[in-house]
C-alpha cells in the first residue's frame, strides 16, 4: 500500500462522517420547515373551517296584512315600507310566549341576524302574493348563537362570564329540541361583501377586489417588465455607464420597502393624477411598481440563460435582431419569465402595507363591479377582520386566509400550466 492510499484511507472515515453530518443537517432543515408548514396549515384550517358553516334558525312567520300595514295590491314602494319588524316580533312572541321582560324581549329579537326583516322584505317584494300566508323560514342566526352552536361558548361557565345568558340558553335548547336549528354550508361567506355583523360578512368583495387588482397589476407590469428586460438584455449597449446605472436602480427598487410604494402611490397617483382612491385601479398601479423589478430581474436572468448559439443560428440565417428575440430567445425564456411573474404576483397578492396608504383599508360593503369601484383586497380584509372585536370574526379571519391560500394556489396552477405549454413548444 502506498502512502497516498494510507493517507486517503485515514481521511476517509472523517470525510464520510462529514457527508453524513451534512445530510442529517439537510434532512433536519427539511423536517423543521415541513413541521412549520404543517403547524401553520393545521392551525389555520382548524380555526377557519367552522367559518364555512353557518347556523340557521327556523321560524314560522305570519305575513298578515294587518301587521304589515299593506295588502297584496300595494305598490313596490309601499311594500318596501311595510312593517316587517313587527312581523318578526310577532313570530318570536308566538314561538316563545310568556316573555314579558323588556330586556329579554330584545334578546329574543336578537336570536336571528339583524337582516331578517330585510330578508322578508325582499321575499315579499318579489312575490306580493305571500301576504296573508304563513311561511316557515330559515333565518341566519346571530353570530353569538352561531358561535354557541359551533361549541365555542362554554355553558358551564358562570352566567356573567358568557355572552349567552341562561334565558337565551333555554330558548336555544327549545329550538334545538323541536328541530328548528340547522347548521348549513355558509353561502353568505361567498356571496356578500364585508359587514359589521359577522354572520352577514362575506369575502366576495375582497376576493373580487383582489382579482381586479391582480388583473391590473399583471396587465401593467408583465408587458412593461418583459419589454424592459428584453431591451436591457438584448439591445442596450454593454459596458455603458447609463445602462449600468439603470441596472443598479432596478435592483435597488426590488429592495425598497413596500410601504414606500404606497406613499408614492398616494402622492402621485391619487393626489397628482387624481385616480380614485380605494380602487383596484390605484392598487394595481402601486403593486405594479412593486412587481416590476421582480419580473425584470427574473426575465433578464431567463433571457441570459438562453444559449447564445441559438441567437447566432438565427442571426446567421438572416433574421433581424427583433426577429431573433421574438422567434427564438423570448419563447425559450418564457418559462423562466413566467416563474418570475408568478413570484412577483404572489408577492403582490399578499401585500397589505402599500394598500393601507391608498385607502384600500376602508370599510366597503359593496361588491366591486370593476376596477374603478372602491374595493378591499384579501390581505386587507384579513387584517380588518382580525382587528374586529366579535368572537365570530376569529374564524372568519382564518377562513379568509384559507381562501387567500386557495387563490394563490389557483394562480400558481395557472402559471404551471402556462409553463408546461411553453415548454412543450420547444
Amino acid at each position, binding site marked *: *500500500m*502506498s*502512502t*497516498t492510499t494510507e493517507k486517503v484511507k485515514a481521511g476517509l472515515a472523517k470525510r464520510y462522517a462529514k457527508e453524513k453530518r451534512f445530510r442529517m443537517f439537510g434532512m433536519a432543515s427539511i423536517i423543521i420547515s415541513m413541521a412549520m408548514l404543517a403547524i401553520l396549515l393545521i392551525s389555520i384550517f382548524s380555526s377557519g373551517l367552522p367559518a364555512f358553516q353557518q347556523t340557521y334558525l327556523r321560524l314560522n312567520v305570519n305575513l298578515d296584512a294587518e301587521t304589515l300595514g299593506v295588502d297584496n295590491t300595494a305598490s313596490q314602494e309601499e311594500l318596501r315600507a311595510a312593517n316587517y319588524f313587527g312581523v318578526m316580533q310577532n313570530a318570536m312572541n308566538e314561538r316563545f310566549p310568556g316573555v314579558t321582560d323588556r330586556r329579554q324581549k330584545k334578546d329574543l329579537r336578537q336570536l336571528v341576524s339583524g337582516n331578517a326583516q330585510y330578508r322578508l322584505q325582499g321575499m315579499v317584494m318579489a312575490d306580493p302574493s305571500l301576504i296573508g300566508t304563513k311561511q316557515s323560514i330559515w333565518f341566519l342566526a346571530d353570530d353569538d348563537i352561531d358561535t354557541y352552536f359551533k361549541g365555542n361558548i362554554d355553558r358551564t361557565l358562570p352566567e356573567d362570564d358568557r355572552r349567552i345568558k341562561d334565558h337565551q340558553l333555554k330558548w336555544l335548547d327549545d329550538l334545538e329540541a323541536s328541530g328548528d336549528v340547522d347548521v348549513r354550508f355558509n353561502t353568505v361567506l361567498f356571496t356578500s361583501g364585508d359587514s359589521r355583523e359577522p354572520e352577514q360578512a362575506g369575502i366576495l368583495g375582497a376576493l373580487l377586489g383582489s382579482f381586479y387588482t391582480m388583473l391590473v397589476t399583471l396587465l401593467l407590469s408583465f408587458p412593461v417588465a418583459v419589454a424592459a428586460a428584453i431591451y436591457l438584455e438584448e439591445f442596450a*449597449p*454593454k*459596458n455603458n455607464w447609463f445602462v449600468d446605472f439603470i441596472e443598479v436602480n432596478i435592483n435597488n427598487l426590488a429592495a425598497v420597502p413596500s410601504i414606500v410604494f404606497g406613499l408614492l402611490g398616494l402622492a402621485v397617483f391619487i393626489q397628482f393624477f387624481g385616480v380614485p382612491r380605494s380602487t383596484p385601479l390605484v392598487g394595481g398601479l402601486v403593486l405594479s411598481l412593486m412587481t416590476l423589478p421582480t419580473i425584470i430581474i427574473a426575465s433578464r436572468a431567463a433571457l441570459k440563460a438562453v*444559449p447564445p*448559439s*441559438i*441567437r*447566432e*443560428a*438565427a*442571426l*446567421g*440565417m*438572416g*433574421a*433581424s435582431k427583433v*426577429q431573433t428575440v421574438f*422567434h*427564438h430567445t423570448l419563447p*425559450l425564456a418564457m418559462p423562466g419569465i413566467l416563474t418570475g411573474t408568478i413570484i412577483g404576483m404572489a408577492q403582490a397578492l399578499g401585500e397589505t402595507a402599500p394598500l393601507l396608504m391608498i385607502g384600500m383599508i376602508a370599510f366597503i360593503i359593496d361588491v366591486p363591479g370593476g376596477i374603478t369601484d372602491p374595493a378591499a383586497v384579501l390581505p386587507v380584509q384579513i387584517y380588518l377582520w382580525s382587528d374586529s372585536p366579535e368572537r365570530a370574526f376569529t374564524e372568519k379571519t382564518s377562513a379568509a386566509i384559507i381562501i387567500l391560500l386557495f387563490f394563490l394556489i389557483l394562480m400558481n396552477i395557472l402559471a404551471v400550466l402556462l409553463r408546461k405549454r411553453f415548454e412543450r413548444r*420547444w
Partner: protein
Amino acid sequence: MYETTTLVQSDIKMNPEPGDTTNSPIPEPQSQDVDIRTVIDELKAAGHAVGKPFLDDPKIRCRDLSVFYDQTKQAIFDASIDIGKNQVVAMIGPSGCGKSTYLRCINRMNDTIPNCKVTGELSLDGEDVYAKDQDPVLLRARVGMVFQKPNPFPKSIYDNVAYGPRLHGLANNRAELDEIVESSLRKAGLFNEVKDRLKSPGTGLSGGQQQRLCIARAMAVSPEVILMDEPTSALDPIATATIEELITELSESYTICIVTHSMQQAARISHRTAYFHMGYLVEVNDTNTVFTNPEHRLTENYITGRFG
C-alpha cells in the same frame, strides 16, 4: 512502503522545472524556431501572405482586412485573400489566430459583438460587404453559416429547415415550402434518415445529424457562400466523414469557407488552404502545395506538428 515513497519522489524529480530546458527530453518548440517577433516583423513588412493569395475572378475579394476588439486589441492584421467561385477554402492555424474572426467578417456576424471594428476592403461579387447601405440581413441570406457546435432551433426538423425560407418569404405556398425543405434535406444527405419524423424536434437527432440539419437549414435559403466554423469538431469520425463527403458534393454549386483544426480534413476537402498565425495571414496556396511544400517557416512548423 519505504521503496514506494522513494519511487514517488524520484518520479517528481524526473519532471523538469518549467524553466529547466538543459536536459529536457522534449524539445522546446519556440527555442528551435526563430524568434516569433522577428517573424511578425517580417510578416508586417511583407504586407501580404506568401504563396498565391490572389485570383483573377474571385467570389470574395478581401484586401487589408483588420479587425479590432475594444479599440485596442487587434485580432486580424491586414489580411488580403481572394476566394474563388465554387471553391473550398480551408482556414487553418493555431487557436486564437483569428481564422474564426476572419470567417465571421464575411457575413458580418462580428456586428453582433459590441466594440468590434472592421477596417479594410471585403467584397462579395464586387459588392462592398461593409458599405453603409449593405443590409446585413440580405447579406446573411446570401452567405450562410454553419457553426462549431450543432445549434438546431428547439423546434421540429421541418421548422428548422423552413425557418430561413419563411423568414425571407421564399416560398409562396405550403407545397413550395415542402419542396424546399425536402430538397435541402436531400442535399444535406439527411432526408432519408428523417423523412418519417419531420415533425419531431431537431434537438432529438444525433450530433452528426444535427450538424447536417444545420447545413440543410443554411442551404434552404440557397446562399451563394457557406461559411463553416469547425463544423466537425464536436462530431465522431463517422459523422465527420459524412459531413466531409457532403462538403465535397456541395462545393460543386457553392463557395465554401471552412475553418478547421484538423489538417487532414483541410487536406482532404479543400482546394486552397490559408494559414493564419497570431492574427496574420501567413500563407495561402493550393492545398497540395501548402501541405507538401510550404513556403513559410511558420506554416511548415504548424503542419509538421511542431506547434499548434
